[in-house]
């Protein structure tokens, strides 16, 4: 059973398009995250939701809009895609309230903008 799953695994699209990436976790966690990993492997947190409420919103262009229909899902919608959006996007989940905040990651979605 996959704990944190993302779809699609690969996404190739043209500049200016709008696309979505979906994430689901079956761990019963109440907190979910989106990260962006650039070509240099640097991981940057973008958003975090706790029980469908946005709790972390880093400096990310407002073309990126997360949506959490329930605590098991956190989707990422990107409008007007730009070349610089090309990266690997990781979804993660954790259980809030735990001191150590271990996060479980999905397999990633490799986005290529042409």
């Amino acid at each position, binding site marked *: 059973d996959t704990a944190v799953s993302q779809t699609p695994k690969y996404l190739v699209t043209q500049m200016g398009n709008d696309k979505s990436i979906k994430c689901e976790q079956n761990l019963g966690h109440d907190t979910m*995250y989106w990260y962006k990993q650039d070509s*240099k*492997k*640097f*991981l940057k*947190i973008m958003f*975090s939701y*706790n029980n469908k409420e946005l*709790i*972390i919103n880093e400096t990310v262009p407002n073309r990126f809009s997360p949506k959490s229909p329930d605590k098991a899902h956190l989707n990422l919608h990107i409008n007007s895609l730009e070349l610089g959006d090309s990266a690997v996007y*990781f979804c*993660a989940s954790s259980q*809030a309230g735990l*001191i*150590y*905040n*271990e*996060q*479980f*990651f*999905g*397999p*990633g979605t490799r986005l290529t903008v042409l």
Partner: protein
Amino acid sequence: AQSVTQLDSHVSVSEGTPVLLRCNYSSSYSPSLFWYVQHPNKGLQLLLKYTSAATLVKGINGFEAEFKKSETSFHLTKPSAHMSDAAEYFCVVSDRTGNNRKLIWGLGTSLAVNP
């Protein structure tokens, strides 16, 4: 604010020799520290974590790390490298922002294992 510094961006070892990946952290309170591993074109997997219990932490695949408060270090070690250990390794500290927590990631150390 918390921060983490991985002292080597790239480490190369021979198979069967010890591995040492260095990490220093900065924290205003007792931190939680982690090492994650990312194999090529794969997701991120937790190797081990320190949560203020034993200072020597054992993880998966024979890795361990020692929390040294006096040196603000959390170096990752393995006695004998295997080819399958070639991957990117991230040292991470848990940061507290009000009631919320987020992970602060190091820039990663790429480990190469030579036959």
